[in-house]
């Protein structure tokens, strides 16, 4: 899964390298900057992965947490070991979180690496027009990866809850991924503007605020708060469901 994610920045870098030139202002933001600065491969790859690839992989991992064990039948042996239901749930969520942290990090670092290999690396122009050195740019890249990791916490909790609902892992994965798509679609409907700040995907693309000078931390904080809320709500739901669940698989 992480390898599939790592392929995204590699594809982007190779495609840009092979194509003649990217006209400014076309395609995903930052794409036109790649030829001037390889570090933008990481940013572009993260931007491209946010709507689908990251939620998809996180949905698969989070949806598999409990339902995967139930599907294999190993859940009953873990429980009679006894692993403890709460402990098992926490360990499983920690696993999903670890993946959510690793996934954007892999995209960012592989992107920066392949970018550095194929393109020049130098000072990075921020959205505000100011330039920062490559070292600080790498820091920003890691910050964005952290932002995306936080952004995926809520989805991971939703996946965990979905995973406690069924013994069929594919069902939990699919419903989690579908939910992330639904959330993004709702976020695009202007008629539902009142709902937008409550959608877990609402701030996903605001990682761009980390590319401003000075950094606009508001979206990071708001996003973290929102994700925290989702983790609390769906964590409590997952707890309620899993602790009372009859394990019959």
């Amino acid at each position: 899964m992480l390898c599939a994610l790592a392929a995204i920045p590699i594809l982007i870098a190779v495609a840009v390298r092979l194509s003649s030139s990217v006209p400014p202002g076309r395609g995903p933001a930052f794409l036109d900057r790649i030829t001037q600065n390889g570090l933008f491969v990481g940013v572009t790859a993260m931007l491209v992965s946010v709507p689908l690839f990251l939620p998809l992989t996180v949905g698969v991992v989070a949806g598999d947490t409990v339902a995967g064990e139930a599907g294999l039948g190993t859940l009953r042996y873990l429980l009679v070991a006894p692993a403890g239901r709460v402990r098992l749930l926490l360990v499983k969520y920690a696993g999903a979180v670890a993946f959510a942290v690793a996934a954007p990090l892999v995209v960012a670092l592989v992107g920066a690496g392949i970018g550095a290999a194929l393109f020049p690396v130098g000072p990075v122009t921020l959205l505000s027009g100011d330039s920062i050195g490559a070292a600080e740019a790498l820091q920003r890249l890691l910050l964005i990866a952290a932002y995306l990791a936080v952004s995926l916490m809520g989805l991971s909790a939703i996946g965990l809850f979905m995973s406690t609902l069924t013994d069929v892992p594919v069902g939990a994965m699919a419903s989690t991924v579908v939910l992330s798509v639904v959330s993004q679609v709702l976020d695009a409907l202007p008629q539902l503007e009142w709902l937008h700040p409550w959608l877990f995907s609402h701030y996903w693309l605001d990682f761009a605020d980390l590319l401003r000078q000075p950094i606009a931390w508001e979206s990071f904080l708001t996003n973290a708060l929102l994700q925290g809320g989702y983790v609390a709500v769906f964590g409590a739901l997952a707890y309620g469901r899993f602790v009372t669940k009859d394990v019959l698989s």
Partner: protein
Amino acid sequence: MTRTWLRWMPAAVVPAVIAAGVLSGSLPASAGDPLPEKTPRQVLLMVAQHGEKSLSGTLEQTSQMGLPELPKAGAGSPETAWLELLTGPHTARVYLDGPEKARVQIMDRMAERNAVRNGDELWFYNSKDNTAAHAQLPADADGRHEARPGTATTPEELADKLLAKLDASTEVTVGTDVQVAGRSAYNLLLTPTSDATLVDSVAIAVDGETGLPLGVEVKARGQAEPAFSVAYTSLTLEAPDAAIFNFTPPPGATVEEIPVPDHKAAAALPPSDAAAAKAGKRPTVTGTGWASVLEFPAGAVALPGKAQGGAPDPATANPLRPGTSDPEGTRTVAAALLEQAAVAVPGGRLVSTSLVNVLILNDGRVLAGSVPLERLQAAATPR
């Protein structure tokens, strides 16, 4: 079973706690002492006297005027930029340090527009197409402002003058205190006395401590939500980091030099305006106060190519057409907006918003005002 119910408790309690937290957070914070009572004149005086020259803050602007949203940061052209700024919600960061250093950052999605002034240097930058514009201000630009005759009034005089001017058309009151960016503020309310205008009220939030205006809210008649509002969501009254005002265009950016007219030329009318006036294309004003109607003679306003024809030419009406920074493109965006928003009315077409109506007559004249359509039509018929 009680055990089962106990285990579902967190799932019920957590959303309840969050809901309670959100509700209590969104309630108007009545914390802090109420501000001492002040008359409108005293509040205006505070504004005139306020000495806050250094600040950094975030401005939030929303508008619900019933206009379609324009693509954000679509083009760097100043002609459409103002329209775009009026139609959608925006967040901007503002940095001020004295009169000579300022920076405004309009935070678009995945992009940013900057205006930076550092002494004589003036920079504009749009990250969307990586373009910058530079202007060198005349060295005495600010000295001139202060020396201008007629402006050398004391704050008291200024407040009195303003009140006297407003008196005929507007009721000026101070409403109940409001909270803006976490600060208690006086709420200066301007309510038009005339029924003929679309404007219901204008509310200006004035910081109770410093007199700094913190926000403006314009309400239209018959609309509960403000039609237009701009206010700080956060504010620090300290000098920002000096590095913020140092701007050099990034490598690879297209830089355009804006010629600045010299002192004498600047004192006169801008060339284009002067030309327009010579050609008899200056707007005329009928009515007074809030109900004033501006009339632009035919040809004064750039209209879409087929304005009279009705159906827009799809090729020119596409607002997303690339390369909109050329004048053609500018017109295209304006035209597209017009085509989208205009409805046919007897004698022409109407662009109607909750605050302003614009009537484009079939003969090419354009009437605009914060008044209902009937008054525009009445103003259009020659007496």
